[in-house]
């Protein structure tokens, strides 16, 4: 079994990730092989079973909003691929 080319391209677009032709071809087969192995879950009866999102019994943890020291802007901007003064510089979002 193989995924269609369109399916792989659609998923890559959702992930906002480019893929070369060779990557697309490889993904068609590899993803299909892995997905085939997930079919085993169909045999499990999960009627009236609620999903587990995480394993610890905590919900909506709140804490007091206490002001503290912020990280230094210069150290954060030092990692920026591009900057202008104290701002991150990005390409135009609206074209």
């Amino acid at each position: 079994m193989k995924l269609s080319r369109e399916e792989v391209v659609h998923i890559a677009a959702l992930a906002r990730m480019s893929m070369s032709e060779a990557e697309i071809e490889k993904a068609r087969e590899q993803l299909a092989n892995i997905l085939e192995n997930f079919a085993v879950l169909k045999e499990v009866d999960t009627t009236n079973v609620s999903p587990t999102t995480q394993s610890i019994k905590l919900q909506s943890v709140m804490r007091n909003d206490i002001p503290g020291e912020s990280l230094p802007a210069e150290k954060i901007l030092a990692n920026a691929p591009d900057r202008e003064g104290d701002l991150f510089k990005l390409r135009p979002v609206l074209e």
Partner: protein
Amino acid sequence: MTDKYTDLTIHSAHELLKAKKISSVELTKHYLDRIKKVEPQVRAIVTVTEDSALQQAKQADEAIANGKATPLTGIPVLIKDVMCTKDIKTTCSSKMLENFVPPYNATAVEKLNNAGAVMVGKANMDEFAMGSSTENSAFFTTHNPWDLSRVPGGSSGGSAAGVAASEAIYALGSDTGGSIRQPAGFCNVTGLKPTYGRVSRYGLVAFASSLDQIGPLTKDALDSALVMNVISGYDSRDSTSAPEAVPDYTKGLTKNLKGMKIGIPKEYFVEGMQAEVETAIKDAIRKLEELGAKVEWGVSLPHTRHALAVYYIIAPSEASANLARYDGSKYGFSYKDTDSMWEGMEKTKQLGFGPEVKRRIMLGTYALSSGYYDAYYLKAQKVRTLIRREFDQAFEKYDALVTPTSPTVPFKIGEKADNPLQMYLSDICTLPINIAGIPAISIPAGFAKDLPIGMQIIGKPFAEKTIFKISYAYQQVTDWHKKTAKL
């Protein structure tokens, strides 16, 4: 090649430091020399932090002189390169973060620093902790000190190999589906994955947030307990951090397992399991019986066979969401050769991530996409409930469960590199534990022709103490954990 320091544990080094038989600076210099000697063969470390290590060692010596030494003070440690270290590169063994310098420390690192630890380097790993061999590192593959042609396991392969090669006395790793325990088993060290929420994930680069957990890789169980005493506990900066009080994990360790009930789940002795592994684990279990434990064979956890599918739906789904942040705008690799914002983002991911990371982003995106969400992601989360329930039921009868850590001994470098499914199967015994969020350790339990075999001990939520108790007792009457690789 061994020397008088190769066999040091945290507790034995602490005695030497306290008795002023050696200084932390001397100890640290020894380990930095050792790194220089063995690193060309083992390749466990991405960044050696010589200058800051010597500075930390000097501070540790002052603390020791002032009588303020705690068990970890002045002891050299390796940190997996997935934990943020202030002003020190944190790469996740990815081109994406090759030059990323965090402005803050992960909580676990901060806690070690406060305890006077000396970090000698950042350990190699599979890119973004995705893999079982370190072959997915964008920089280089780590070699198993027991056989350099074999993998050290992964994803915390650098941490495990580094401890096995005595490049540090212990290490921190992270475990999402076996990433501490499987390499610990492959390299003959003791590796604990604590209960989900026990150790803060603040500053741990996220892979699968509902499964990730930080833990120690050490020379023995007592060392593991000593590290857990320091890194465990509530952290307001991690909303999944557990409020449970932290006990002294070193208390109550004895040679006696009387009254302990241990179950052996039959599903973990899987088809395709290496005969030597099965023999070694069964021998080790009989040893636990000799120590006084009541062992019951043939316990059944039927949903074990669904764990692989559940894991490879949930982990990539969470990863695809977590890794969406690497868009080349605020930090990390950024594709520059375009005027289009979308193209820049799409190329940044294509060129910044390696094949396994991209495969998991695709898998996760698929499982979460419209039309497939119910069949894959929601279904997996429901089966996750059943897996956890099965463990809860078993723990009504048993204090702990014992299994092999991995069905095989370390495999050859390159052997599984082109077959993702085969690679996924090497974590078959460790994945269910992360799905359930419970704690488990891997401890050395024998060899198959000089290749290490690990035994996994699984405990109830927050019952790390029970796990340490069994491990410690076993290590009092065996010496597998004392065997060191010849380099």
